[in-house]
């Protein structure tokens, strides 16, 4: 036993898969201890806030301010305000004014502005330019001058007694606050989803629930498959015929169709994560049963089983001590695959809207369903659907790696 | 008249390197010669190095088997000095051919027998046309008494014995000078075994091969197939001689024990008491420095465990590895036989 475990951990594939899986598991366990709060709590008003660090504007005014003179601050400010369309329009004007095209670089904000300040004359009408167009350039110029001005912004508050605005502070362009000193800052690495919920917190909770669904589904499927396989394979005869018939019946009906029909008939209200797991487990056992049956049939005729019979052992004793240990490694591998299959099935069901009801627990599949309904994929809000997608891929990948690693240890013929 | 020597081996030593980097000397200073038209049998219990010797004789080594020292000379060419790639191109199949026990599994189930033969021949002579190959295969199959329609069949359509004979016929199609057959018939029924043996004998008779080395632990079979017999124990040769000599007049105590365990359905067998050799062969990771058989030998003496025992040549190609002189050994055996007779008489 010890020897086998040592060998398993010497298999590179298993170790890589195992590390990925354990990392995911650790995050699921540790994360809620650090970031407390409802995983499905709505924290944002609006949909799909992009990933980033959110700093409270109100609190930053109240925070101690520092004066920093940074050369590029103004240029950065203008650069972030000057849209690409405006830049192209400026370029058009400059070319029409006679500036050679190769001297204009619209990506270099500073140079562009310099050139603009030097050449632009609001009164100069260029040939062929409409009046509306001319007004547009004048407005553009005005707003650029506003950006370039060095005047401070005034903060005012309404006096509760008189109702008059009173100046409470001034924010200069060179005023800075330290993010660390702002009272309220929230990091949202994956932004928020369509309901304004923190995607990361939701993701961690969803991964936990999905893993539980996979585990329950896998355990149920393996247990049913193992029991039926052992009975069919060892007892044989009529029992074998009946079980094989039922198994084949399940195998010829596409599992997923069956899954959809069952989920649909259960109804939205009754579909909790546990119910879904049980449903998946009850539809996934046939191939485990078939595989276990085949293994048991080849073991049944081995001499050690015959000798055990001759020693007067009961059927239960023979199955438990002479058959099960021989197929244990195989069953563990089947269990791992069934777990990852359970997670995938849940995701597939949820995308179709047949997953667990949507009010209480998030699952990886549900997260993707929400993102899909609110068209995150069309709007380019990748942070709403990509993280759960990646998590599903990582979990199933790690489990398949572990499975391959185990396979190499238990089937020496596959070792390279 | 001295015959042409086909295969000569001088002091060949090879070893296995195990997964734990331990050395196992499975073939230890083995020397032998096989003349044209003769066959040599190698006997011994499992783990004594006879299959390793067969692999080592081809001169083509791949891990975990490693060449250590010695020479292999096939028809005047010293192949131990050649590059592995040259050996594969110029020696294997054309000079020396090897048939392992499960040779019939070498047939590809998705290929017809003739396609398999084409692959084999084209590996050595890429310019031969399909027609030439087919004619060649057909001719040799006919000579060897195999039906020519086997060529157009798939391996699943053939019985085990037929598959084995097909592979043997294929392996000698390029007329190798030496054929090494390692237990070619032990997985077969007695009747199929007889057919395989007959075919091997025919190969030599019809000139497909010039000499043969035959390996098996079935002594009655060996006695009937080969001209000479060599007994191996723990990687060393312990006895050499003609089949007649080794089977009926063994000198080495181990060979004596082996011959005493022969069981054949013949008159008189029921009166014989089977000789059993207690114990197991020594571990070749760390073999005894002196006589390797000493711990299982009935006649062991203090001197046995002192020095390595050389192979004593007693003339006529006969040799044995024991410190006792030939005469003393014979006396011991004769005395033993007399006591046994007395016992039986008393019963």
């Amino acid at each position, binding site marked *: 036993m010890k020897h086998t475990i040592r060998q398993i951990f010497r298999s590179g594939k298993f170790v890589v898969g195992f590390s990925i899986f354990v990392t995911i598991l650790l995050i699921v366990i540790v994360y809620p201890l650090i970031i407390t709060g409802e995983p499905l709590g709505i924290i944002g008003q609006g949909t799909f806030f992009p990933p980033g660090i959110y700093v409270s504007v109100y609190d930053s005014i109240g925070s101690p301010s520092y004066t920093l003179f940074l050369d590029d601050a103004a240029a950065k400010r203008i650069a972030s305000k000057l849209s690409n369309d405006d830049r192209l329009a400026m370029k058009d004007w400059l070319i029409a004014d006679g500036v050679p095209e190769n001297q204009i670089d619209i990506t270099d904000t500073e140079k562009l502005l310099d050139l603009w300040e030097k050449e632009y004359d609001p009164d100069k009408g260029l040939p062929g330019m409409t009046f509306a167009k001319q007004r547009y350039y004048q407005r553009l110029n005005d707003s650029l001058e506003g950006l370039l001005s060095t005047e401070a912004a005034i903060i005012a508050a309404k006096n509760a007694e008189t109702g008059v605005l009173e100046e409470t502070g001034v924010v200069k362009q060179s005023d800075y606050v330290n993010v660390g000193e702002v009272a309220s800052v929230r990091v949202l690495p994956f932004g928020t989803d369509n309901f304004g919920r923190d995607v990361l917190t939701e993701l961690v909770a969803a991964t936990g629930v999905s893993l539980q669904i996979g585990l329950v589904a896998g355990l149920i499927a393996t247990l049913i498959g193992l029991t039926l396989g052992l009975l069919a394979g060892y007892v044989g005869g009529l029992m074998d015929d009946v079980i094989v018939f039922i198994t084949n019946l399940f195998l010829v009906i596409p599992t997923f169709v069956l899954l959809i029909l069952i989920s649909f008939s259960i109804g939205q209200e009754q579909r909790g994560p546990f119910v879904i797991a049980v449903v998946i487990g009850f539809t996934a056992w046939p191939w485990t049963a078939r595989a276990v049956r085949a293994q048991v049939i080849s073991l049944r005729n*081995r*001499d*050690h089983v*015959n*000798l*055990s*019979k*001759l*020693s*007067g*052992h*009961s*059927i239960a004793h023979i199955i438990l*001590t*002479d058959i099960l*240990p*021989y197929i244990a490694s195989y069953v563990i591998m089947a269990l791992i695959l069934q777990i990852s299959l359970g997670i995938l099935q849940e995701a597939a069901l949820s995308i179709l809207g047949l997953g667990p009801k949507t009010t209480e627990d998030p699952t990886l599949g549900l997260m993707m369903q929400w993102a899909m309904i609110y068209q995150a994929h069309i709007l380019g809000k990748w942070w709403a659907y990509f993280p759960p997608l990646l998590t599903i891929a990582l979990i199933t990948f790690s489990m398949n790696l572990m499975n391959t690693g185990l396979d190499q240890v238990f089937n020496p013929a596959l070792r390279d | 008249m001295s015959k042409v020597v086909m295969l000569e081996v001088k002091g060949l030593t090879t070893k296995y390197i195990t997964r734990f980097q331990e050395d196992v000397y499975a073939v230890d200073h083995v020397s032998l010669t096989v003349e044209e038209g003769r066959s040599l049998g190698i006997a011994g*219990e*499992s783990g004594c190095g006879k299959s390793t010797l067969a692999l080592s004789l081809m001169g083509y080594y791949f891990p975990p088997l490693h060449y250590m020292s010695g020479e292999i000379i096939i028809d005047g060419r010293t192949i131990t000095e050649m590059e592995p790639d040259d050996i594969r191109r110029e020696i294997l199949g054309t000079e020396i051919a090897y048939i392992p026990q499960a040779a019939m599994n070498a047939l590809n189930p998705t290929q017809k027998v003739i396609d398999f033969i084409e692959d084999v021949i084209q590996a050595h002579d890429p310019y031969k046309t399909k027609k030439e190959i087919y004619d060649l295969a057909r001719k040799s199959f006919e000579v060897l008494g195999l039906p020519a329609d086997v060529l157009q069949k798939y391996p699943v359509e053939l019985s085990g014995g037929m598959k084995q004979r097909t592979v043997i016929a294929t392996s000698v199609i390029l007329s190798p000078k030496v054929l090494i057959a390692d237990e070619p018939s032990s997985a077969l*029924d*007695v*009747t199929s*075994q*007889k*057919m395989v*043996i*007959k075919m091997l*004998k025919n190969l030599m008779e019809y000139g497909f091969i010039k000499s043969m080395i035959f390996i098996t*632990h*079935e*002594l*009655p*079979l060996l*006695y*009937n*197939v080969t001209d000479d017999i060599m007994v191996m124990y723990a990687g060393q040769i312990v006895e050499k001689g003609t089949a007649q000599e080794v*089977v009926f007049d063994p000198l080495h105590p181990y060979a004596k*024990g*082996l011959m*005493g*365990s*022969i*069981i*054949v*359905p*013949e*008159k*008189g*067998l*029921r009166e014989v008491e*089977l*000789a*059993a*050799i*207690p114990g*197991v062969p020594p571990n070749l990771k760390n073999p005894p420095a002196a006589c390797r058989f000493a711990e299982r030998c009935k006649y062991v003496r203090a001197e046995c465990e002192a020095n390595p025992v050389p192979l004593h040549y007693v003339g006529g190609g006969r040799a044995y590895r024991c410190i006792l002189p030939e005469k003393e050994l014979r006396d011991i055996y004769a005395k033993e036989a007399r006591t046994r007779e007395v016992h039986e008489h008393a019963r």
Partner: protein
Amino acid sequence: MPDDKKSCLSGSGLTKIFGLGRQKTVAVDHVDFNFYEGEIVSIVGESGSGKTTLAKMLLGLINPTEGEVYFQGQKRDISNQKKKKEYWKSIQAIFQDPYSSYNIFNKIDAVLLDCINMRGGRNLPHAKKVELMTEACSFVSLKFEELTNKYPFELSGGQMQRLMIARIFLLKPKILLADEPTSMIDACSRATILGMLMNLVLETGMTLIFITHDLGLAYYVSDTIYIMERGKFVESGSPDEVILQPKEAYTRRLISDVPKIHEEWDLSTV
């Protein structure tokens, strides 16, 4: 055979058919036999002759399609687990492949303890059990102290097969069925194991049913030889009758196909 010998195991019209319809194969075809107490019987046949199927029917591991087995003159009744257990106290087996005869997850002690328990020694003090196991091991020249707490795969094939004989030594059944017990063993260990088996049979007076494909072996050990071909017994009799003066063409062919030492091996008959 003299009439005063008591029948130990006999069968009439014993048949086993596998499969149905077109895939039907008759493995054993209406076989009649009568094995006497204390006799050594060999059943000789090529692979596929049905000898192992017959052995399994005799052991009660598979049910015959037709026919009856009589144990000590009585119709054998193994209809339930309890009766089977009782029957298996009288008949035991040694199988061909020692490597697959052991449960690799159980220690060697468990194999021997099972036998003591089966002989009603479940409540013996531990020291007595060890004494019995040591005795059984020394019968086959093994040392129990060296084997205890070991797993089967730490033994050589020959040692495993000897331990199987030790198992029979502890069980002391009336009938021992040995299915090719030496075919996976080397020629010289074969003599050792055969010797131990014969000692056991002589000492306990048990009936030995020896199943083999090796005519020489059958000739050497048995009192009666049955030759089996395609599920039927084609010839039976004393070894000298069957081997030295075979009546049936099949037996003659089988004997002529075996290589011999003192007689010419005629290769032209193939």
